[in-house]
């Protein structure tokens, strides 16, 4: 079946100018013409590097000049899965993603959106603006702000001292917690906006009816509100997980992955391997692992966001 017969069967589809005169095949090509620049750019700059990524991952490519590039099969992957640093990077990535995205941004964003519904308008717009400001600030600036905040002589320890709580050198003792909190600070706005929009669409009659039946605040939230917004929750979780997996600049500015690799996530370790030690082959093999993890998450996200029309 050709594209044109599909179009004829469905009266809703508009006909192109001069539809009757132009032969079917060339008309289809004409119609697709505006897509060409997009397809070319996507093939060259996205599909191309991904194919390169797969190819390099099976070679011993190095960027140190004289050496030739050889096909080495699965050697890079075998090396990775025998490399303690690689496991460490996977672990740090996991901690960072769970702590900052799935728990931090997601829950804080939902809490803020819920508080918005009760709080006064002035406070709502001030806090909303502050949370969004942290989001709009460029990544590298956010990194430096957070670096200053968590430093030994920074604001956090000052606040803790004021509250008579124990202080410590966060970037040294708990770097992964510091960068995770930094990512919460930077990224919560997205979840806040998604959940504010989602909560606004929960019909008031639903929660009111539940309240009439004697459901408490918590029960109403758990049994009425949450099931109604579950689609937004799924979408939001997917998107923030994908964003968090590839965070580089924030961690690079705050800790550069240190001290002693205690905040070296996969993007940081890949960068160190490929562009500081010039082991391109090994680095891309690890990048491929990150790409596969991202692709798997992206597939789940695709299922949640599948375009429904035709």
């Amino acid at each position, binding site marked *: 079946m050709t594209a044109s017969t599909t*179009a004829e069967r469905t009266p809703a*589809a*508009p*006909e192109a*100018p*001069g539809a009757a005169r132009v032969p079917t095949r060339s008309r289809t090509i004409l119609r697709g*013409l*505006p*897509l060409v*620049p*997009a*397809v070319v750019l996507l093939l060259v*700059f*996205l599909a191309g*590097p991904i194919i*390169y*990524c797969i190819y390099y991952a099976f070679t011993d490519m190095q960027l140190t000049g004289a050496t030739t590039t050889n096909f080495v099969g699965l050697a890079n992957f075998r090396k990775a899965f025998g490399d303690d640093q690689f496991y460490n990077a996977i672990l740090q990535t996991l901690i960072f993603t769970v702590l900052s995205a799935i728990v931090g941004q997601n829950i804080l964003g939902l809490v*803020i959106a819920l*508080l918005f519904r*009760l*709080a*006064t308008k002035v*406070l*709502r717009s001030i*806090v909303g603006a*502050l*949370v*969004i*400001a942290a989001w*709009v*600030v*460029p*990544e*590298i*600036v956010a990194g*430096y*702000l*957070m670096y*200053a905040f968590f*430093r030994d002589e*920074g*604001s956090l320890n000052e*606040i803790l001292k004021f509250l008579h709580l124990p202080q410590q050198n966060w970037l040294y003792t708990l770097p992964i917690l510091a960068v995770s909190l930094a990512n919460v600070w930077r990224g919560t706005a997205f979840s806040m906006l998604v959940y*504010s*929009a989602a909560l*606004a669409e929960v019909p008031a009659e639903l929660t009111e009816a539940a309240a009439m039946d004697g459901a408490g605040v918590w029960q109403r939230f758990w049994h009425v509100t949450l099931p109604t917004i579950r689609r937004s929750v799924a*979408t939001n979780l997917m*998107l923030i997980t*994908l964003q968090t997996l*590839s*965070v580089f*600049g924030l961690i690079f500015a705050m800790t550069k992955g240190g001290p002693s690799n205690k905040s070296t996530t996969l993007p940081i370790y*890949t960068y160190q391997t490929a562009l500081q030690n010039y082991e391109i082959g090994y680095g*891309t093999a690890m*990048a491929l692992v990150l790409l596969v993890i991202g692709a798997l998450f*992206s597939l789940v996200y*695709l299922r949640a*966001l599948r375009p429904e*029309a*035709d």
Partner: protein
Amino acid sequence: MAKSVQAAGKVAANVGLAVVGVAFLVPLLWVVTTSVAQGQTLKVEWPKHFTGANFAHVTTVDILFRPLLNGLILCGGGTLITVVVAILAAYPLSRYRSRLKRPFLLTILFTTGLPITAIMIPVYAMFTQLNLIDQMWSATVFMGSTALPFGIWLMKNFMDSVPVELEEVAWTDGASSMATLRRIVLPLMWPGVIVVTIFTFIGMWGNFFVPFILLIDPNQLPASVSIFTFFDPQHGGVQYGQLAAFSIFYCIPVAVLYLVMSRKLSGSFALGGALKG
């Protein structure tokens, strides 16, 4: 009694929200206080001695204006590529039916989720081999391409909301599809075009990794990368005051753009356009 419980809930919500607000405010406040303070400080405090020296020091061509201009060329060019190509691509995707459309849209959506960080190593290797490294134009085209999947997706959703009936009239009058796109569809969806433009630009302006990898010559670096010089020990240790002053200049464009966007359309509307199926 129910009323007093409700009132107590309201107070608790306000207090909770205020705490969140302070937590988000403190790090932002540091930039402001440090930028006008004399001497080094890493915590938020009222400056003992005010000074304009930090601002005066950074407002030179080498430190501020060239990186900002580079960023403008890189991100402005990239945004232009994304927006123009996305408009063109969105038109057939929004208006015509085809067997290929659904797989294409699914691929686009899938691509929006891929971690760009992961492909930067092969991109670096590819650019080095093809002699494209450290070239402003190739970095610009690359930036434009990486923003394309989300741009197309967003643009198509905005275009879908323009009713097709108006175009049918134009078509029967013999106007070409590109002419209808320019004269009928675009004027009706300009808020959507503005949202995509601003979104794309803000994303690129803050992008650190791509120019960090693809550009080398210090004279070509945008502000997102040149900010590192403040951390260079060779320049006499970390200059926090100058770093803060520089950050303020660097943030102003995106802050203004965000305000423009949220004035014109609510933030949730923009996201709604992006997230609806």
